[in-house]
């Protein structure tokens, strides 16, 4: 197919070593014969010229019975680019940790070639497969095809609802994993389908699960509830491998600094341990595990010699989010350690955790203002109010340091004699 719209500016993005999305879209337009792809390039070229986007505020579109999973989108220059007049997006809930069979992928591609633009995001920032650009009338057919397939695909979340949970690769291919990240992610997604598809909350809510404190799914920055694997026993040490590192027989950091990187155990491991709980006498590496905060650094640096302990569980941090509106937040440590056993058992696994989650949601639902994330609500009402709601005792592990201001709000029942006093009594002791 000949080029529909000239794109001199975008053409400059075709060269260079990094794969070019322009080439790819153009290929879809030309080789795949997609009008949508051609019009998308045309509209994008216009944006490159004007330095302004050309999509309108999304209207409310979706599939019956769901309040989310589809993002409506319309062009504001539909006359110029009629094939992208509608350009709605579907969020398809990815399988946990994003392994696919080619059969599964091809199934999606097939639908999308027939009923959508043929363009995707693999993946969206939350973790969904994002199918980019279709018309309103295609939404229900697509949904039917997805759900009635062998794989029984479903949509992910959007709006003021539970968003699609996601996780790191975990035990599937990582020796550091202290959690069954996929199983936890799957458990939560399956258990909270109603919360995902029928927005009923003040705002969005996200779960992310990382198998260890390296946090490869960025949960501590990007999820209202961050589940991070950790352990409470001792780091396992393989002394022979320690010696091999010392002798330069194994490249440091799992080879991540290049094969020729010589690890200096003192300088690169012991001296960088944040708690100073390691020592190295040139022969023996000693870890005072009681003082270790499980940051992972030493394990990252010497993965063949050191491994996390075996009594594993999760730390739960609440409230991470992007800056709208009160400024960005990282997750705050709420449950220092919780066992996360049997997540494969959808009925009876993770019961204690579910209980926590539901208490949290209830409190948020009752107290949150419109468009107030749980982290912002905690900021507004105070961490202790949240702890009371989820029935967790205050713990010094929840703070970097105790308060430094003297403004404590004592409650009446904490103070002998209560708050009721009369000036008459006072004046008996103290003349005016």
């Amino acid at each position, binding site marked *: 197919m000949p080029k529909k719209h000239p794109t001199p500016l975008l053409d400059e993005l075709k060269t260079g070593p990094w794969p070019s999305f322009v080439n790819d879209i153009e290929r*879809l337009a030309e080789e795949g014969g997609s009008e949508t792809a051609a019009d998308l390039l045309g509209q994008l070229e216009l944006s490159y010229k004007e330095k302004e*986007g050309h999509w309108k505020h999304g209207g409310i579109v979706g599939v019956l019975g769901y309040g989310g999973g589809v993002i409506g989108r319309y062009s504001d220059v539909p006359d110029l680019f009629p094939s992208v007049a509608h350009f709605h997006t579907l969020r398809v809930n990815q399988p946990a940790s994003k392994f696919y069979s080619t059969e599964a992928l091809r199934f999606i591609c097939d639908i999308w070639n027939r009923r959508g633009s043929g363009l995707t995001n*693999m993946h969206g920032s939350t973790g969904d497969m994002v199918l*980019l650009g279709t018309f309103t009338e295609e939404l229900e057919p697509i949904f039917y095809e997805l759900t009635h397939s062998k794989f*029984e695909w479903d949509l992910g979340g959007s709006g003021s609802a539970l968003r699609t949970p996601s996780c790191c690769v975990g035990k599937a291919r990582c020796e550091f994993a202290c959690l069954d990240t996929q199983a936890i992610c799957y458990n939560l997604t399956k258990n909270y389908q109603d919360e995902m598809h029928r927005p009923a909350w003040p705002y969005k809510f996200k779960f992310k699960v990382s198998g260890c404190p390296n946090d490869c799914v960025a949960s501590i920055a990007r999820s209202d509830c961050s589940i991070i694997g950790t352990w409470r026993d001792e780091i396992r040490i393989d002394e022979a491998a320690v010696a091999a590192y010392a002798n330069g027989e194994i490249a440091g950091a799992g080879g991540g600094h290049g094969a020729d990187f010589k690890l200096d155990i003192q300088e*690169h491991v012991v001296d960088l341990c944040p708690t100073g709980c390691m020592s190295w006498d040139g022969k023996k590496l000693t870890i005072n595990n009681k003082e270790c905060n499980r*940051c992972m650094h030493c394990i990252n*640096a010497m993965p063949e010699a050191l491994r996390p302990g075996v009594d594993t569980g999760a730390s739960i941090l609440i409230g991470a989010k992007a800056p709208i509106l009160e400024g960005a937040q990282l997750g705050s440590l709420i449950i220092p350690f919780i066992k996360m056993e049997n997540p494969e058992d959808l009925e009876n696994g993770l019961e204690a955790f579910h209980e926590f989650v539901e208490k949290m949601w209830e409190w948020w639902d009752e107290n949150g203002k419109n468009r107030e994330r749980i982290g912002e609500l905690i900021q507004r009402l105070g961490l202790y109010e949240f702890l009371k709601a989820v029935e967790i005792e205050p713990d010094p592990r929840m703070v970097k340091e105790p308060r430094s201001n003297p403004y404590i709000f004592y409650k009446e029942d904490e103070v002998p004699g209560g708050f009721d006093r009369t000036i008459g009594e006072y004046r008996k002791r103290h003349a005016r």
Partner: protein
Amino acid sequence: MELPENYMKDRKTDLGPPKYDQFWPEIIKNNYGKWKLHKILEPGVYMHESETGEKVYTLRCAGTRLMSTLHIEDICKIADQFCEGFVRFTTRNNIEFLVNDESKVGPLKAVLEANGSMPIGGTGAGVTNIVHTQGWVHCHTPAIDASGPVKAVMDELFEYFTSMKLPAHLRISLACCLNMCGAVHCSDIAILGVHRKPPVIEHGNLINVCEIPTTIASCPTAAIKPYKDDEGHKSVQVNSDRCMFCGNCYTMCPAMPLADGEGDGIALWVGGKVSNAKSAPMFSKLMVPFIPNEPPRWPTTVNTIKQVVEAYAADAKPFERMGEWAGRIGWERFFEKTGIEFSHHHIDDYRFAPTTWRTTPQFKF
């Protein structure tokens, strides 16, 4: 699939995602939870060894994220040829091909290289894929494009994608507006689209598409007030002095667009991290308040990032993330060594501003 006539009848809902383990290659199934160690053999190629003695080899290659079904079909073909028909995507949108035998690594590499659109790399102490968002390709609130700047920056930093010679991981993210869907607030380097003009208001139409009280309430700085225009339309007006261009009003009310070719552009941020290794997670800090939009290749943005990466590469110690480096040498040195200009915009004036001021005479000349 044949769509039945009444496809609205026999509905299935609340299915959730397909179960993950059906997509695992044999070697993953067999060694789930038994992995013992990993070795990055060369940039983009790494091996995990199991307690069973089995080994899996992963080849990681660049994903554009915005990809066509044709490209996915290319991926599938390769996965069929080498990987029992399985493939995975990483949390940073790279593509991972897993093979169960070292002998397959060479041929797989050759095929990927031949493809031309799947460069291998992104592991260890280098630059991996840029997490990014929609930009002008799909969203309605962007101040910048996403895929374009990403392509331009990665072209420039490509040598760091295919090598592991930086002091530590260097994670770059991009978000096209302050909503920060790219969650750029904790990245070693972040590229952020920013508006700089207050919303322009469609008084004649506002009342038809927005609720005035919600619109007023949406503004975090209380810059929005009720208003009636000359023609008697009920509407709102914005006190420009109080506007910080967050765009929340536009999210709530389509009659208040912020986008402007001259006003919009890029802010660069630096020194955030997510992992808990050594130091706790940190927010990214402002590096360059504003660079105009320069499509198609955003040269100022690209060069500035390059400049900072080179300064970091030259000066930081092994294992030191960007933010750890800046913290150790002090921000006065960071600005000196990178050659970036410090301005009053770098001084925080939002909610927790006072906690960022320097309350000690400890500084470096």
